[in-house]
């Protein structure tokens, strides 16, 4: 059978859902096809052990764009809002970080931290404006593009001479040098390094990690929240909003290929042979998969196909889930601290050392860990009195030498648990079940090529008007009717909805123009 829609969205990740909803609100009939049984893509809640549920991939909410929330009327229910970050120190003298205060550090560090965050917030505000609109295209006479570029130049100048100079100096710089210039405290420098590199294939010494840090703050200054019911609840709510707006969502409907006729996209075909017709197909999948697998390289110029092949997007973050029969004891932590984000990044060198092996396709011997105990404030996730630990772990390179088999994955899981045990000695006795998702697993289960959070590495050469690549940075692919709306496009990954919203806006404006 075949049916026809104004637009078909491939993949019900959060960006796909946001995009679909806005298109429907714009008066289009929209079909969303999702390969998995659940909507949400990498933003889902899964039961990984009997009675224990966890946000399977993304686990913290910190980048959701205010613009997206207002336009969708979207208010996720939070179990924990504005969580602090506790940077664990081996000696139990932990450092506590909030948006504008650092405790457990020297007076100088405290002052410097406030100044640092003030400046970074200011720069991230500037960045946010541009994350929430399609990037301008260079070298065109298009008025919109020229205006946006002019505006960008103007906004940067408006920072004032000194701040503008700082901005232009910092934007390409590595976070390591800036931290070493400002701070003494190891755990402080470690936690900030972690925020700059989480989800990327970069170490704190890699240039432009200040930019990745700013990107993280660009949501709402990096304010951390835990959604009630896990990330899946966020996706379910988005799906609900989509359906209310008239969107049709089909799960268990993996798209096999994007159908091209006479040099333009005319619809999609699912793996069970179903055809759905539409002159507008929007892919929430990563750019490489979209072009190489769904579309087929033969439909684009060889030069373009080559650039797609060269997109860098090999994930480095693994996800650890532990079912615990009770809370572990962390040296120097109180019970209430389990509501916060705990990080293992005792100093900036530790993070850089963890990165080194990843360059050679090896796992970190002493990994960097970001932990949360979602069940602490959200009892729906675990049986009474029991708890769930959800952790993002770096570095676990997608391209592991010898590949990711059960043994490799198990070995890494053990070394992560061992690392946590250095701070919570009784953790191992508490574990009743565990699950480790390597980038390979993430690729397999969530259909993200390379298992990379951002679908494509977040570096300056793949950012703004070159994201994911020139010739496709405005969500529109170089074949009629095909668009992208996923994390691989501007501005990038994280549960922000910005990419989906920008894509919808550029499609609607083009439609309005036509």
């Amino acid at each position, binding site marked *: 059978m075949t049916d026809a829609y104004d637009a078909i969205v491939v993949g019900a990740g959060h960006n796909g859902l946001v995009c679909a909803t806005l298109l429907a609100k714009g008066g289009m009939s929209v079909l969303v096809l999702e390969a998995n049984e659940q909507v949400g893509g990498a933003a889902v809640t899964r039961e990984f052990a009997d009675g224990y549920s966890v946000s399977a991939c993304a686990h913290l909410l910190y980048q959701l764009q205010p613009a997206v929330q207002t336009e969708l009327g979207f208010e996720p229910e939070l179990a924990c809002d504005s969580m602090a970050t506790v940077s664990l120190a081996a000696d139990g003298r932990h450092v506590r970080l909030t948006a504008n205060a650092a405790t457990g550090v020297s007076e100088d560090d405290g002052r410097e931290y406030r100044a640092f965050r003030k400046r970074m917030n200011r720069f991230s505000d500037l960045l946010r404006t541009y994350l929430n609109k399609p990037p301008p295209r260079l070298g065109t006479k298009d008025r919109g593009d020229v205006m946006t570029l002019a505006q960008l130049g103007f906004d940067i100048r408006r920072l004032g001479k000194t701040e503008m100079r700082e901005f*232009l100096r910092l934007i390409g*710089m590595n976070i390591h040098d800036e931290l070493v*210039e400002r701070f003494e405290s190891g755990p402080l420098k470690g936690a900030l390094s972690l925020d700059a590199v989480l989800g990327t294939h970069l170490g704190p*010494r*890699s240039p*432009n990690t200040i930019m990745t840090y700013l990107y993280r703050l660009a949501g709402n200054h990096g304010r951390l929240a835990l959604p009630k019911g896990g990330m899946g609840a966020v996706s379910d709510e988005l799906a609900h909003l989509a359906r209310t707006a008239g969107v049709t969502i089909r799960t268990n409907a993996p798209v096999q290929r994007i159908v091209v006729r006479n040099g333009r996209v005319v619809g999609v075909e699912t793996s069970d042979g179903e055809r759905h017709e539409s002159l507008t197909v929007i892919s929430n999948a990563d750019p490489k998969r979209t072009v190489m697998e769904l579309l087929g390289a033969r439909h684009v110029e060889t030069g373009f196909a080559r650039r797609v092949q060269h997109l860098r997007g090999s994930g480095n973050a693994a996800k650890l889930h532990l079912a615990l029969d009770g809370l572990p004891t962390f040296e120097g932590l109180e019970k209430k601290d389990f509501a916060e984000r705990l990080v293992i990044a005792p100093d900036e060198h530790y993070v850089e050392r963890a990165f*080194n092996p990843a360059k050679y396709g090896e796992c970190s011997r002493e990994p960097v860990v970001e932990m949360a105990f979602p069940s602490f404030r959200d009892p729906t996730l675990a049986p009474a009195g029991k708890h769930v630990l959800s952790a993002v772990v770096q570095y676990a390179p997608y391209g592991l030498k010898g590949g990711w088999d059960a043994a490799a994955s198990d070995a890494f899981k053990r070394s992560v648990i061992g690392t946590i045990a250095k701070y919570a000695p009784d953790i191992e006795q508490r574990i009743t079940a565990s699950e480790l998702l390597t980038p390979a697993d993430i690729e397999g289960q969530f259909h993200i090529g390379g298992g990379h959070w951002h679908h494509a590495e977040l570096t300056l050469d793949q950012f703004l008007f070159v994201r994911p690549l020139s010739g496709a940075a405005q969500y529109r692919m170089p074949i009629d009717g095909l668009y992208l709306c996923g994390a691989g496009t501007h501005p990038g990954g994280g549960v922000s909805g910005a990419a989906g919203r920008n894509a919808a806006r550029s499609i609607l404006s083009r439609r309005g123009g036509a």
Partner: protein
Amino acid sequence: MKTYDAIVVGAGHNGLTTAAFLARAGLDVVCVEKNDYIGGAAVSRNLYEDWIYSNCSYVCSLLRPEIYRALELHKHGLQVTPYGGSVTFMENGDYFGSYHDAEVAYREMARFSRHDADAYKSYSADTMRQCRFIREFLLSTAPDPTSFKPSDIRELVKIGRKFLEMGEDRMYETIRFWTMSVAEYLDEYYETDVIKAAFSGSGIIGTALGIHSPGTAYVLLHHYMGEVDGNVGSWGFARGGMGAVSNSIAGAFRAAGGELRTEAGVDRIVVQGGKVTGVALENGDEISAGVVVSAMDVKRTFINCMDEKDLPAAFYRRVQNFKIRGSSGKLNIALDGLPTFPALPEGSSLIHSDMHFIDSMERMERAYDDWKAGTWSQDPYVDMLIPTLNDPTMAPPGKHFMSCFVQYCPHQLEGRRWTDEERDAFGRTVIDQIANYSPDFKDLILHVEVRTPQDIEEQIGITEGNIFHGELTMDQLLFNRPVPGYAQYRAPVGGLYLCGSSTHPGGGVMAAPGANAAREILADLKRPNTVPENFGDD
């Protein structure tokens, strides 16, 4: 006491260049040098019997031809003989040679991969396009994007226009090129590890970055900008060693009536009422002048030779935080004869070229990890040359001089001074690596000078002995170099200027900073400009 129009501090190639252009404009100029020899890091030293060592910089290619012609350096004895190519010895006993002749280069690459051989054409075309784009701006002052001065706006517009002229695709290429790592850049063209390793070296020489660090593609370019007899990217030997470059510029300076004083180290730059009035020498003498130009690096100038209270606080902090990282060492070796390299075919021209001993990208990056850990690379990237094969004047007949540039070597070991034992151990690491590919090498060694960044700092006076007077990272290039807002050679103190490699466009024996500084100074003094404009190219 005599008052000069200008004092130039430091007789390195940049200081001498500024001095020469100022003298040619009719200024009464004195150039003071702390050592008893001139040249700074561009010197020929006689440290062992009749051998002449280019004991710091060892090849010239970056030297701007406009300057060479304007100062008529040929008349002052500078002869640059071009050479090209390089060889990378492989652990499996094979080698990879890169040649200047396109034909030969192709055949050699095809030996490893036809794909790579075919890719070379587009690789060099693309890379040279980037070279041409930025070469235009080497001999001009970097505009300040925060300023509304017509001159700055004009320069910004000029850059903007050049950029737009490229057309959309080229623009994107350029943006990516400026921001990516040399490893990623090479991955886009090549599949063979040894070929990538051979080309990646130029992306990290003299920097505290690894081949995987974003921004290193630009550094690659910095080394490709060379121009000998108009051959883009080709390198050259200065006959008689690198000292010949400095001596010839000094010749041009003297010919224009300039005065050179050696063994005249500057103790401090004297400031009165927010203006410089001269310099006080270590021997107690004072020299007065309304203009003082420092060829020293930015840290040494403002932190060692000036009083903090004479400088704006924000500026001083930026100077303290300016990144100058010791990352390279040097071995200078006197040889009793020519070592043999069994891997090379009989009579191969490659013995005249740069020789390298690291054959994989992983080994390249691991060398950097050692540096990050605060020690020298156990398996270093060595750029080895035997200049005497091209210039016999540097050693007695039949004997040879070998120059080894070593990456990576830290300024200090885990934050403390080098001991003599450690320096020797570092030297042995390098010698052993070479000996792996040349069985008779060790027996031919007559004398070795091992120089760590610490030695280079103490002998030449460059902070941390960094050959570029500061990292070539985006936050320290163009209008950010050395300090945002002070990238136009003027210091925040009246009459004080910078002309060293800490300023735009950076290090290498290029002499562009010296020339650009002279142009700015002459403009301030309302004197006729003696500095050549860019000839542009092709």
